[in-house]
């Protein structure tokens, strides 16, 4: 298997630090990349995603879909000699906010039906 087919990827997170770089075949899917990112996420960060669905990957100005492959997400003008491709990772707000707010919003809502049957 020739080494030249592999693509070198690294992932930049919200505070500017990078995860990786890792080598991937262009046939690898975005879902696989997300699994690896969650597994390799530094444990000392304030926000830590738990599953692949907690993050979004952005590259070449687009949000990447899970079923796309690395080869399909390559930036244009590929003839430019670039070593490592850097993608951005964003943690989903539902996860991040839930983590921050679970201690604050504990007041149970009262569901009272106001209708009266005459």
């Amino acid at each position, binding site marked *: 298997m020739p080494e030249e087919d592999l693509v070198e990827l690294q992932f930049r997170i919200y505070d*500017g630090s990078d995860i990786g770089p890792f080598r991937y075949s262009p046939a690898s899917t975005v879902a696989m990349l997300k699994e690896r990112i969650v597994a390799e996420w530094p444990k000392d960060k304030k926000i830590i995603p738990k599953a692949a669905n907690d993050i979004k990957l952005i590259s*070449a100005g687009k949000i990447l879909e899970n079923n796309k492959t690395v080869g399909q997400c390559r930036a244009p003008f590929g003839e430019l000699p670039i070593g490592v491709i850097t993608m951005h990772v964003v943690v989903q707000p539902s996860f991040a906010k839930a983590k921050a707010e679970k201690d604050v919003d504990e007041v149970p809502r009262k569901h009272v039906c106001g209708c009266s049957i005459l």
Partner: protein
Amino acid sequence: MLTPTRKRLMRDFKRLQQDPPTGINVAPQDNNIMLWNAVIFGPDETPWDGGELILALHLLSENICEDEQLYV
């Protein structure tokens, strides 16, 4: 046709690829350096926090200045 504008844009794109800023991700569309896709991550504590702004930048002018330092 490789005008100075297009050369400048290619240079900018190469710089952005080598060291991408944290809050944005941007790249030209296939084979058209005058049309770019961009994603801006919603800054913290703004109404866009947690979201992404998805933009398409259409550069109309061929007169983008070569040297920003002229504007000091």
